[in-house]
């Protein structure tokens, strides 16, 4: 694409081709796959948080009407996980959380499968349960996994032990010396947050069949290759025996970034020889949601009177629930988010995934970045207050800029955050203060910054240039609703081949058709699959131009692709059509196709400063948010009066779609910050079982988000793009938390800020956070490394 600017070639704001079927109800999601041949499965789940399985007799259930097969733990014996293989699909011997599946039954109807569950004879003997991280970290705590040392390690380098599933640390510079300086003010803060449930409208669902000796799973997933790997592991078959295809997915938000029920459907399909469908009920989906984890955070900073942060240390405890799951990986992200935003002298951060006897957690849009940013930005306000500096002034002076080093010692290119803060000032001035709308209520405003990363990793793409001049793009990307498969990818291929995006067919994900891909999440699809697609297009262009060069008797470098034709540069109409060149190519050597791939570029950190990290250096992506709000002093209810976003997008291919991502992500953040609350009762179960008591934002809770897309920051993505869907939620809790602190003059240190909590905050009735299980001595919160 170096020969011509992208803006000349790409179709911007390309309409998404799935829109018509989605508004008319014709789209078939995984939950809509049906037919009389499909069997329906239901799962027997534990109603204890921690118990020994004394008896599991499924024979009575086999005699129930309609029952075709029953699977238990011995049918799916393999363990899986991220970093460590600690996960079992169906519990054997012990159960570790309320809701853990123990057996699966396939029957002719769902009602029959559910009725048969009641006939299974199950006896559980309760064991002591650790329901909180404080329980799990207490001396002589019950071990959630007494056999943790026997588990297979899948990623080397992590430190773990007992109820610590994984620990990631970074230590750069002499932090002790920084804190010992006489010219510094030491500021310390404690923070804690609850869980957040994704609530995708399509629950996790899978329909599996066993065909010609191989498993074929239609799954509602973001990670077809993970489903393939996990299914093979738990069933003990080669990965090549598993095929995963993905129809349109009805929302994911990170929940579907792990395998869950898919292998159960697969094993039941093999047993019955029939397609088997498993769809989580809404209650199951809520009660076993791989939520954004609850966390407890301690940050301490040594700051000069000018605001230079000469030393920072932090400990972040992340509740991974009964199995490590995504939290093992996400310990890495603390360094890049809580350790982001600001220039740091010496730094040491420890992030620990802690086992508890609660439902396992997982990935959720911007993951722990959301609460690490909340904690960091509240802490930043407290630092500014402590040294008597204006909060905005502090940020302007100390955000990361060109050639500054990150927490892991990576050198960042480009001044991005400071100009974004300036752009926010412009946006605020343009729309004007909404203070008048607060009336007699408390009014608060805050501006916060946030750092996330473009999650890259391997992607593959093949482009077939068809006889009719259209192109088919084959990847294992998934359309969740974000639009990448409908918009950015056909736009990128079209711009590279000089054809219309309407003429680019994008094949739905099929692990039998395309090369491996890490999955759709982390804002990576446009960047990683886009880059792989572009690389595939380069091969196609080269072949196409080679043939055209001979036909037109013109060197390749003097040919351009545009509007379905190949022209001699500067002489429109002089060339020929792509179709004619394809026909000529077919007669000479066959059809034109090309494959391309992409993986994480070699970003560099300072060697030796990290341990247990899956990613040491990143491509950062930044956001600046501003919030104005009013608080009813009697009820504690918050009304958002204005919300503004300046987002680093690299380059905006689809400003309308990015607007949709920003509006949607910010409103999800409103829910997280204000009213989406999960509480865990004494049985280890969530109290919130559905829409009645898990309170999602409604139309009346939203306001139009004002935004400015910041273009031009360094980016590895095609045409300078960055993922835009992940980060709109990144600093919402931070902006609301800081604005509530500003409005009330109180310390805000926990989320969500429900009305009762804010009312208590105003009346000074909230007890101060106590984290006795986080030592004031940083190193005591780490496992000693050998």
């Amino acid at each position, binding site marked *: 694409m170096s020969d011509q600017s992208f803006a000349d070639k790409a179709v911007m704001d390309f309409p998404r081709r799935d*829109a018509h079927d989605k*508004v008319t109800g014709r*789209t078939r999601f995984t939950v809509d796959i*049906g037919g009389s041949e499909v069997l329906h499965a239901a799962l027997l789940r534990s109603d204890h948080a921690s118990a020994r399985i004394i008896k599991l007799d499924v024979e009575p259930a086999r005699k129930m009407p309609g029952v075709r097969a029953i699977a238990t733990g011995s049918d799916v014996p393999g363990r899986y996980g991220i970093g460590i293989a600690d996960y079992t699909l169906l519990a054997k011997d012990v159960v570790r959380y309320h809701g853990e599946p123990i057996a699966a039954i396939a029957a002719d109807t769902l009602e029959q499968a559910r009725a048969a569950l009641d006939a299974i004879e199950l006896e559980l003997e309760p064991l002591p349960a650790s329901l909180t991280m404080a329980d799990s970290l207490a001396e002589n705590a019950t071990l959630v996994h007494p056999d943790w040392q026997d588990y297979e390690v899948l990623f080397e380098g992590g430190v773990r032990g007992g109820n610590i599933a994984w620990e990631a640390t970074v230590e750069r510079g002499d932090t002790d010396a920084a804190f010992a300086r006489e010219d510094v003010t030491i500021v310390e803060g404690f923070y804690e947050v609850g869980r957040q449930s994704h*609530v995708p409208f399509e629950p996790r669902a899978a329909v599996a069949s066993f065909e010609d000796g191989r498993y074929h799973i239609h799954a509602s997933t973001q990670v077809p290759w993970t489903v393939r790997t996990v299914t093979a592991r738990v069933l003990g078959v080669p990965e090549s025996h598993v095929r995963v295809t993905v129809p349109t997915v009805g929302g994911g938000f990170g929940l579907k970034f792990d395998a869950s029920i898919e292998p159960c459907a697969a094993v039941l399909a093999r047993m019955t020889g029939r397609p088997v469908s498993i769809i989580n009920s809404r209650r199951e989906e809520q009660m076993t949601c791989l939520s954004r984890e609850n966390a407890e955070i301690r940050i301490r900073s040594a700051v000069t009177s000018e605001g230079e942060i000469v030393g920072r240390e932090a400990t972040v405890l992340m509740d991974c629930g009964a199995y490590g799951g995504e939290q093992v990986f996400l310990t890495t992200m603390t360094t890049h988010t809580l350790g982001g935003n600001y220039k740091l002298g010496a730094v040491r951060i420890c992030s620990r995934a802690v086992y508890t006897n609660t439902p396992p957690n997982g990935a959720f849009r911007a993951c722990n970045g959301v609460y690490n940013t909340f904690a960091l930005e509240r802490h930043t306000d407290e630092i500014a207050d402590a040294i008597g500096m204006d909060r905005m002034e502090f940020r302007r002076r100390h955000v990361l800029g060109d050639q500054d080093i990150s927490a892991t010692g990576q050198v960042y290119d480009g001044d991005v955050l400071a100009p974004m803060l300036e752009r926010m000032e412009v946006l605020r001035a343009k729309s004007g203060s909404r203070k008048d709308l607060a009336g007699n209520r408390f009014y608060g405003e805050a501006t916060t910054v946030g750092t996330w990363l473009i999650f890259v990793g391997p992607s593959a793409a093949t482009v077939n240039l068809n006889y009719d001049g259209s192109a088919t793009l084959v990847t294992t990307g998934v359309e969740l609703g974000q639009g990448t498969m409908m918009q950015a990818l056909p736009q990128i291929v079209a711009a590279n081949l000089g054809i219309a995006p309407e003429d680019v067919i994008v094949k739905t994900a099929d692990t039998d058709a395309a090369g491996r891909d890490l999955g759709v999440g982390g804002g990576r699809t446009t960047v990683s699959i886009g880059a792989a697609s572009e690389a595939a297009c380069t091969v196609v262009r080269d072949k196409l131009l080679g043939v055209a060069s001979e036909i037109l008797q013109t060197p390749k470098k003097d040919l351009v692709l545009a509007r379905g034709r190949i022209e001699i540069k500067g002489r429109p109409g002089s060339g020929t059509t792509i179709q004619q060149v394809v026909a000529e190519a077919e007669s000479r050597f066959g059809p034109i196709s090309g494959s391309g791939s992409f993986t994480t570029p070699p970003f560099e950190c300072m060697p030796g400063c990290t341990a247990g990290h899956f990613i040491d250096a990143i491509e950062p992506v930044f956001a600046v948010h501003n919030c104005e709000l009013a608080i009813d002093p009697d009820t504690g209810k918050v009304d958002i009066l204005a919300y503004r976003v300046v987002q680093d997008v690299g380059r905006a291919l689809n400003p309308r779609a990015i607007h*949709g991502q920003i509006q949607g992500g910010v409103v999800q953040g409103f829910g997280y910050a204000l009213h989406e609350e999960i509480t865990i009762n004494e049985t280890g179960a969530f109290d919130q079982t559905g829409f009645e008591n898990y309170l999602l934002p409604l139309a009346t809770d939203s306001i139009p*988000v004002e935004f400015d897309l910041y273009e031009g920051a360094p980016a590895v993505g095609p045409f300078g793009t960055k993922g835009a869907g992940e980060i709109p939620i990144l600093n919402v809790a931070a902006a609301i938390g800081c604005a509530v602190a500003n409005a009330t003059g109180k310390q805000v240190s926990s989320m969500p800020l429900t009305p009762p909590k804010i009312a208590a905050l105003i009346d000074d009735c909230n007890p101060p956070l106590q984290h006795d299980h986080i030592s004031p001595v940083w190193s005591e919160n780490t496992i000693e490394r050998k």
Partner: protein
Amino acid sequence: MTTSLMINGEERSLTCDPRTPLVDVLRNELRLTGTRNVCREGYCGACSVHVDGKPMSSCLLPVGTLEGRDIVTIEGISQGDKLDVIQQAFIDLDVIQCGMCFPGMVMTLRPFLRDNPSPSRDAVKFALVGNVCRCTGYERIIDAVMSVVDATEVTE
């Protein structure tokens, strides 16, 4: 027990348990899967259908109570390629994301706009409190609705 009712203009006789929620009959037996089964508690609105012209949550309607009623689902709204104006506005303004909630939104908004041809933005929001969307944050949906409302008659 047999229940006779009209579904999308066709007379249907259903012999299932009269307590079966209408949404299950539509999706599982008639394979009209555009009616989405999401919360099953009456809060999300994704399963909205018209019963004698009024939008109702089909998860809360036992089919046995619908004898002689006239049911229209999302599949009965558009005639071939001719879409309702609100459906077209959702497409034209690139509002859709995962799409699971949109059939229900259409089922709520069509009679609302018929009865309230010039609603304010706030009135549209209040009309949608029974239709939850997890993806979009609503405002662009409201923008699309306002784009089909006669702007001169809007009173905020």
